[in-house]
């Protein structure tokens, strides 16, 4: 399927912008959904001039508003819906401040689930389309350094897998993206190993290909599949002793 329109939820993120560019380059019209969407005017004009596609920005907060009303208000139902929203938070703070922990869970799990359920119903009714969820390798196994974020992403991964199962045979594909490290503002200032770190453009290319080929679960740099296989296979009695 070569999509002709895409909705990006969380479009101010570096990954969201890269995905918007990638789809627009292939001629797809783009809806950028984000908080403070008025600030996306420059991105909208850029997409329209550079790629000669229709582009617009709409207001969206994943932890707020009524998902049904949000999709009802869209000018058209897009071919592809990409959920990019995420919040890394601060693990130490999440452990002591319930509000902070709840915000992480809402931005990575409950919020995205609410919006994607609303999207799924509509795509299912139409009988075509594709839902892309950006989850994380952090959800593959809980580690002490980021298990609040990780568990929310684990929930999101499980949700996407169930949704894929439900929509199989209904003409709607569901793709889980586990990027590994990506050089974005989320990770700015962290020392990331270059070989394990993808650029936002690489993530966007991989998502584009996954949509065209209707893949199920993708990693960006292949090495991450191996790393996570290894991490998942460490027996728990040993794993709990590790400092990861």
């Amino acid at each position, binding site marked *: 399927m070569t999509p002709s329109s895409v909705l990006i939820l969380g479009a101010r993120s*570096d990954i969201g912008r890269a995905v918007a560019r990638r789809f627009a380059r292939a001629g797809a019209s783009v809806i950028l959904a984000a908080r403070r969407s008025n*600030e996306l005017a420059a991105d909208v004009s850029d997409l329209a*001039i*550079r790629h000669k596609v229709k582009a617009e920005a709409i207001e969206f907060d994943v932890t707020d508003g009524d998902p049904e009303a949000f999709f009802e208000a869209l000018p058209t139902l897009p071919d592809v819906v990409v959920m990019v929203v995420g919040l890394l938070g601060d693990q130490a703070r999440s452990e002591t401040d319930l509000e902070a922990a709840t915000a992480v869970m809402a931005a990575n799990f409950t919020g995205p689930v609410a919006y994607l359920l609303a999207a799924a119903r509509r795509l299912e009714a139409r009988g075509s389309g594709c839902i892309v969820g950006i989850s994380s390798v952090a959800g593959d196994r809980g580690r002490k350094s980021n298990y609040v974020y990780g568990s929310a992403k684990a929930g999101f991964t499980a949700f996407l897998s169930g949704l894929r199962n439900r929509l199989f045979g209904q003409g709607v594909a569901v793709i889980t993206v586990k990027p590994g490290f990506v050089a974005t503002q989320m990770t*700015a*200032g962290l020392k990331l190993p270059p070989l394990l770190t993808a650029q936002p453009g690489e993530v966007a290319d991989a998502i584009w290909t996954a949509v065209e080929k209707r893949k199920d679960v993708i990693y960006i740099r292949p090495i991450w599949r191996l790393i996570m296989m290894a991490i998942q296979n460490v027996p728990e009695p040993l794993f709990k002793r590790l400092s990861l």
Partner: protein
Amino acid sequence: MLANPACTPTLLSGWGRYPRLEGRLATPRTADDLAACLSSAPLAARGNARSYGDASFGSGLTVDMRRLGRLLDFDDGTGELRCEAGVLLSEIVEVFTPRGWFPPVTPGTKYVTVGGMVASDVHGKNHHGAGSFCDHVVSLRLALGDGTVLTCSPHEHPELFAATCGGMGLTGLVLEVTFRLVPVRTSVIVQETIRAPDLAAAMEIFEREVGRTYSVAWIDCLASGPDLGRSVIVLGEHAAPDDLEPGRCDAPFARPPARTRRVPVDFPAFALNRLSVSLFNRLYYGTHGPGRKLVDLDPYFYPLDAIQDWNRIYGRGGFVQYQCVLPLETSREGLEALLTEIARVGLASFLAVLKRLGRESFGYLSFPREGYTLALDFPANPDTFALLERLDRIVLEGGGRLYLAKDARMSAPMFRAGYPRLAQFNAVRRRYGVERRFRSALAERLEL
């Protein structure tokens, strides 16, 4: 989120990788990030770091503008483009050439930002006819660092405009630029190559061919004696559809697939010696046989871009580029003296480019002025620096100056002698209160 704009400590340098400075680098992505950066001082603006020396970083906060690179408006009737400063020229070529529009002025690499093109008021192979980049700028938006953002143009804040065009980022952060592209009918250049046996012949050809759109000469700077200044002159015109081979007329903007090579590692210092340079030069002469042919715009305008990271062939020590301009009256004598001195020392310059420039630009610190400009590359080492001191004296004597975008080593007095409109520049900086807020390593070295 850019919690602290003073974030990552990074080893900073320009294209020549000399000098280097451990500095703080911020990469704003949003209006908020930018505001956070602008509240810090002193600042140095950084585009794609294609200036050779120490212009694109400073000891304060260095602000990488490349993430603020969006196209904002385009009028396909007039070719007027408004964009953010971080847009790369390569993107402009890619997006607009197929629509029949081309940059009015382009430097010898397309990996520069629009902000960098303004700040260096860059010139191209068409300077004798088209002037420099800022001659085509309609207006720009400039952040002064105190919360003010001004629109500058030949009509609004004209003196600030004249200080900013060629002002090396020392008058504020350029946020947006509006400029005019020029219409083209194909993506092909009709290239004509002429060999000149010596300097006099080369200059004669430049003077005879001033009506041509593009012209440039590659000099063999190892030639000496009667061969001094031996060069190939390459002229160019945008091709019309009728010029193309019969099969191509219906695809005037078709482009060959891009082929780039990468220099995988730093070359050891001995790799670039007299022999390898003379081999390269000979190869160059060989492949540039005289005559007329059709070439794609990439190999015509950006031959060096075909090799990514070519600056690494000079090894870890880095290199410097020496680019001077001499007024028309002293060009002949001055160039002869420069080339004689270089040939005498036998220091190999991988690249030696000669070009006729047109009238002086309006920017107070713009480099171009009517005359001849010579650009040479040398490894950064004591022998080079000693040679360049001697070249400085020749340039001074001829009433010429050095290009700030290329410079990494000239002295403050040498700079002041070459730029007589410095006082106006400083007065404008004081008037707008920016002289302490924007400082690069170059500004410090030149006591700007």
